[in-house]
C-alpha cells in the first residue's frame, strides 16, 4: 500500500459551488449544484437515468468544465488545473471499462497512468503492484484485458485509476452487468480502498449496494441535488426517492408498510428487519 499524504480526514477535498452545465445542443444537465466531498468519505450519488449524476462526477476531475460556477479540488480552483494534474487527486473509472482499456496486457494498462504522470523504475512498479493487488488481479498481469470477463475488466479499469494514487475515486455504475458474486468481490476491494483513507464516490442506482456500503447518499433529480443524508435517512424518504425515479430496496418498503405495527422505517437489510421484528414482537 502507498501511504497517502497527510490529510485531515474531515477536510473538504472536492467542492462544487453553484455549478451549472449545459451540453452543446442546449440540454441543461446541471442546474446549480453545491456539494462538498470530504477526505475519506464513502458517498453514493444516486438518481434516475438522465438526472445529471455522471455529468456532475465528470466535473470533479476536469473531464467537463462548468458553464458557470466553481469547482475546487484540494483547496485550489480546478479551472487552473489540467486533467492530468487533477487525476493525481481525483480518479475516474468509466461505466464501460471497454471505453478505457486499450493496452495489450493488464500490467501495461495499469502502468499507463502513472507512467504518463512521470513515474518510472521502482516507484512505478510499486504503484502497479499495489493497484493490481488491491483489485484482486494477481495472476492476471500478463493477460490481455479483453480476454477477461466483465467483472475482471471492470476491476482492471479501476486498478488503472488507483495506480495514479488518487485521494478520491469516482466509480461510475461499477456494478452494472455484474452478478451477485462479482459485485461482492468488487465492493470488498472498494471498501478496502476506502479504509485506506480514500474518498469513494459511487454513482449508481443499485439501491442494495448503496444500503450496504455508503455512509452518505446524495440524491439527484433533474440536474439538482434534492437530498443529502445518510442512507437510512434517504431510504426513509419515499417521496423524494420517487421524484428521483428511485425505489428503495424491497426490505425498506416492507418496513414502511409495517410502520404502524411498530417496525422502524429506516431498515436497510433483511437481518435488521428480522431483528427489529423480534424486538417489536417482544420475544420469540
Amino acid at each position, binding site marked *: 500500500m502507498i501511504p497517502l499524504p497527510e490529510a485531515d480526514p474531515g477536510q473538504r477535498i472536492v467542492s462544487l459551488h453553484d455549478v451549472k452545465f449545459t451540453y452543446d445542443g442546449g440540454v441543461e444537465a446541471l442546474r446549480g449544484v453545491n456539494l462538498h466531498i470530504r477526505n475519506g468519505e464513502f458517498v453514493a450519488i444516486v*438518481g*434516475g*437515468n*438522465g438526472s445529471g449524476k455522471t455529468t456532475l462526477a465528470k466535473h470533479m476531475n476536469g473531464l467537463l468544465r462548468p458553464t458557470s460556477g466553481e469547482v475546487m479540488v484540494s483547496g485550489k480552483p480546478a479551472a487552473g488545473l489540467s486533467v492530468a494534474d487533477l487525476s493525481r487527486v481525483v480518479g475516474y473509472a468509466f461505466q464501460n471499462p471497454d471505453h478505457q482499456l486499450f493496452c495489450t496486457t493488464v500490467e501495461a494498462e495499469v502502468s499507463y497512468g502513472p507512467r504518463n504522470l512521470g513515474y518510472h523504475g521502482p516507484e512505478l512498479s510499486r504503484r502497479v503492484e499495489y493497484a493490481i493487488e488491491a483489485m484482486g488481479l494477481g495472476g492476471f498481469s500478463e493477460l490481455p484485458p479483453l480476454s477477461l*470477463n*466483465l*467483472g475482471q475488466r471492470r476491476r482492471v479499469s479501476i486498478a488503472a485509476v488507483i495506480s495514479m494514487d488518487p485521494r478520491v475515486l469516482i466509480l461510475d455504475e461499477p456494478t*452494472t*452487468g*455484474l*452478478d*451477485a*458474486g*462479482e459485485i461482492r468481490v468488487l465492493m470488498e476491494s472498494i471498501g478496502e480502498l476506502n479504509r485506506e483513507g480514500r474518498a469513494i464516490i459511487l454513482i449508481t*442506482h443499485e*439501491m*442494495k449496494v448503496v444500503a450496504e456500503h455508503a455512509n452518505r447518499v446524495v440524491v439527484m433529480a433533474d440536474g439538482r441535488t434534492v437530498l443529502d443524508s445518510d442512507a437510512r435517512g434517504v431510504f426513509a424518504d419515499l417521496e423524494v426517492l*420517487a421524484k428521483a*425515479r*428511485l*425505489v428503495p*430496496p*424491497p*426490505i425498506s*418498503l*416492507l418496513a414502511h*408498510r*409495517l410502520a404502524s*405495527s*411498530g*417496525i422502524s422505517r429506516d431498515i436497510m*437489510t*433483511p*437481518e435488521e*428487519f*428480522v431483528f427489529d*421484528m*423480534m424486538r*417489536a*414482537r*417482544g*420475544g*420469540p
Partner: protein
Amino acid sequence: MRGVRFVHAGSQARALDGIDLDIAKGEFVTLLGANGSGKSTLCMLANGLVPHAVPGTFEGTAEVFGLDVSKYPVTVLATRVGMVFQEPESQLFCMSVEEEVAFGPENLAVPKDEIRARVEWALETVGMNGYNDRSPMTLSGGQKQRIAIAAALAMHPPMIVLDEPAYALDPIGRVELFSLLKRLKEQHGMTVLLAERDPEEAAVYSDRVVLMSKGKVVASGTPRETLLDVTRLRDIGIDPPQVATVSALINERLPRQAMSSITIEEAEVAVSRLLSTRPRSISR
C-alpha cells in the same frame, strides 16, 4: 427443448449442457442465473440466433411453436419470437423511431397500410406514441428499451424473449418495464421469456422461474418453489429476494412458524400476523 447442448466456437465449456425445458403458451418465465450460467445462450436459441448466427456446436432439439429451430431461418423464427437485448443501443440503428419500429415488418414485405397500423399499435402498447419522428439516440435509456420492444412487437410475434432488459434502467424504469411485460402477457396473451440476475422482480411477475447454473437447469417451478430456497440460490451465485431471506431468518428463529413469503405484499400480511400474536399478549 430436449437434450440441448451448445459449445461456443473456440470455447471448451458447454454454454448449454443438456437442457430439457418446456414453456407453455402464455407463460411468463424468468431464467435466473449468474453470469456465464447459459441464460443468454438459451434466449438466443429461442429465436434461432443459436445455432444459425452464433458460431458453435449444437446438439439436441429445440422447437418454437412447432418449428424446429435448427431447420428454419431466423427470418421465419423472428415472426414467432421477438428478441430484445440488454443494451438497446446495440439494436437501434435507424434515423427515426418510426423507421426503427417499421424495419422488421418492411423486411417481411408487409403492405404499407398494415405497417402503419402495426407501428402505431406497437408504439401505443409501449407507451411511446407520438415519438414517431424522434431520433432513437435522443431518447433516455428506458425509452430506447421501449422502442426496442416496440420493434419486436411490430413483427406480431406470439412470444417475446428479453435478455436482461433492465440492465441499464433506473429503479422506476425497471418497474415500468416489468409492468409493460405483464400487460403484454395479460392483455395480449403473449408468452414472455426473460433472463435476469436479480430475483426481486421474478418473485412478483413470473409464473415460473428456471434456475440456471453452468449451462444446466438446476430447478424449475413457481416463484415460491424456487425462490424460498435461499441456500440453493446463494450456491448458484444469486442473492435471494430480500423478502425470501426474511422468511428464512424468521423460520430459523421461530421454528413453529412456516413463513413462505416472497413478495412485499405477502410479507406484510405474514409479519402483521406474527406481530399481533406477540408472546406478551398471549401470556396476559
